[in-house]
């Protein structure tokens, strides 16, 4: 019999809450704020696009310092999550572990090293130690002292969702008592240039599911969830925010950079996550969509939801928070899972901002521009990424 996996703590660091204040993040998201502004962390003057959702490096405490922004964000979000769960020092270290989802890790430090190589390469050696993708997980393991595992999953934009899913399996199977799972990524020129070359970047704002959508914007941040077995959480009197009821990942198997046009892989992942969690499609009250604001993603996601939810797709509330936060890659899925849990807690669904024109190809209820009060008992959090990666989490509200 699998253990029930519950979430007892959340930590989110985003451009809406650089210091990691969870309530500020949530209030800003529900108010329809956006963090998109001109890129400051590198020179974009030669690029056609200049916007992203960045965290002020000074406020992050890494300005000029030899520390990868991703490290600081991850450290802060992890710390907030443990505090939120009141879970420090209460677990056998070997029964606790870390799973981090990231696409870029310390790529900003790799950029520094390459730029410096002909001048002062020796001085950038410290930067190299922060470059490997797995270095963030190693850092969190050192900081927490948890020794069960320090895993890094990199599945493009689905990384954060997969990290939570894989960690939840570890608890469900009884191999861990506590897992810290989530994702982190920082804006860098490498990814900015790549998405610019693919002509996927918007030049002004992100408009998920809107007919006049023009592309995505890069974002950054970190989010971590504290996962525990329900019985163990109950024994220590922990507050439960929700249950990771189901998880699945599926491959499109069609194209390296474009999604399957009908959302085949995403629909398969969502259906499998619902089955895994024993959730009926019509029990879902909220879908946190991947909703990047690119023409192909939003259209395929609409079709995928119709495939999975049937007629219920037209009744369920769906929103994308990428208009507010941009696309934080490895962190996106974890931030969106946190959004589902906060929606359950407060009975508020954050809006899809900048939804200006309805699109016949995106004809579902995307909660346009204003937050909505409603009871959320079960939610689906969807992620899709390069390489045809698709992942879904079925999340259930705690029993009343």
């Amino acid at each position, binding site marked *: 019999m699998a253990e029930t996996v519950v979430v007892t703590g959340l930590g989110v660091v985003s451009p809406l809450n650089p210091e990691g204040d969870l309530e500020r993040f949530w209030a800003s998201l529900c108010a329809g704020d956006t963090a998109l502004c001109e890129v400051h962390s590198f020179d974009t003057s*030669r690029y056609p696009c200049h916007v992203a959702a960045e965290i002020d490096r000074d406020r992050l405490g890494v300005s000029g310092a030899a520390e990868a922004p991703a490290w600081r964000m991850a450290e802060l979000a992890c710390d907030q999550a443990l505090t939120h769960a009141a879970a420090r020092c209460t677990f056998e270290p070997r029964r606790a572990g870390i799973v981090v989802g990231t696409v870029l890790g310390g790529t900003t430090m790799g950029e520094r090293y390459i730029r410096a190589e002909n001048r002062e390469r020796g001085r950038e050696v410290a930067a190299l130690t922060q470059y490997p993708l797995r270095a963030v997980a190693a850092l969190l393991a050192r900081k927490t002292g948890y020794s069960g595992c320090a895993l890094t999953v990199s599945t493009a934009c689905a990384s954060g969702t997969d990290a939570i899913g894989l960690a939840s399996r570890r608890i469900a199977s009884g191999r861990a008592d506590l897992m810290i799972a989530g994702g982190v990524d920082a804006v860098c020129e490498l990814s900015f240039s790549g998405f610019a070359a693919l002509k996927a970047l918007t030049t002004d704002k992100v408009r998920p599911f809107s007919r006049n959508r023009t592309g995505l914007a890069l974002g950054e941040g970190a989010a971590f969830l504290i996962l525990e077995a329900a019985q163990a959480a109950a024994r220590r009197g922990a507050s439960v925010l929700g249950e990771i009821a189901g998880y699945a990942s599926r491959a499109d198997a069609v194209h390296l950079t474009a999604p399957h046009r009908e959302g085949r892989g995403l629909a398969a992942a969502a259906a499998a996550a619902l089955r895994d969690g024993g959730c009926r499609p019509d029990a879902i009250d909220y879908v946190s969509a991947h909703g990047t604001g690119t023409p192909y993603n939003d259209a395929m996601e609409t079709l995928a939801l119709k495939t999975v939810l049937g007629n219920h797709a037209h009744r369920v509330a769906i929103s994308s928070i990428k208009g507010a936060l941009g696309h934080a890659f490895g962190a996106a899925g974890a931030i969106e899972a946190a959004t589902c849990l906060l929606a359950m807690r407060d009975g508020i669904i954050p809006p899809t901002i900048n939804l200006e024109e309805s699109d016949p190809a995106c004809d579902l209820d995307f909660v346009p521009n204003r937050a909505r009060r409603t009871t959320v008992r079960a939610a689906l959090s969807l992620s899709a990424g390069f390489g045809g990666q698709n992942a879904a989490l079925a999340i259930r509200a705690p029993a009343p």
Partner: protein
Amino acid sequence: MSHPVRLVSIGIARTDGDGAGETGGLAGRLSGALSVVSRDGAQVRLAHGIEEATLIAAYDALRLAGVRTPLGTEEIGVALGVEEGIDGIKAQYYREIVKDGPLGASPIVFPLTTPNTVAARISIALDLRGEIVTMCGGTLSGAHALGRAMEALREGRSSAMLAGGATSVEREFLDAVSLVGGFEGGAPGCAACLFLLRAQGSADAGSVAGQILGYSEAVGAHDVRDAVEACLQDAALAPSQVRSVLVASALDPRVLVESVCGVGVDAPMRRSPSAWWYSASFPLAVAEAIGQAADGPREPTLVVGSDCLVGAAAAVVRGGGC
């Protein structure tokens, strides 16, 4: 109670050959795989040696298991360990940006700067629509991928998994490792080692190359000891039942002896010659242990690996069937 996983077949591709006459044969094997997997007039385009090696290994593992490709179903998932294998591509891509600005950004090369591209290429080429995950654990990448595949199979979430590790070791990577004071070793080249794994009780009861009896990982001051102890527990084996120990990384032999003997394992130990294949090293060592067992007694071998950042992993494997 242990839940072994059946290791149905093994696919290996290495640019240095593996002693089985592979050197010089990779181009032919790639061509053979591509002629089968290209479909509907569409060419499967591979841009880098790591993709080529992985496709060859994946195709061979499936072919040897009697799986016809392209598959076109969710039946088989992919769990691949990749990390340093994309660093060369990433560095080259970024150098072009530094040199030429936005004009240096290649939309063809950019997707290859993420490690999951390798698994994605395999899923596309072989039309594998099941679970898909890429693990980045440095020298333990392949071990972590095997661990995730075992979880998926044991918990009944997938009926089969193509799992292992792949790398492209480049001179610049070796220089960087040396610069930061990491262990030094290895030579440039590409390698991939993939297994087709099935759950022990799965309906398809064909022949198997071996079994993975147990697996575990750990991090921290006692990582090797903890990983070995948990692995033996997972395999429901007493330390005395381990007949040999194969080391899959550049682990300090003193640490290893202390750790392994500390949990009561008293068996001959040696380092795998594949220890320098980073992300592919652990799966290659597992393959080596299985291969040796094919010619000798089918008794448990403990495979131990470690990484300078994320700890240790251990697996107990045995050649042949039950």
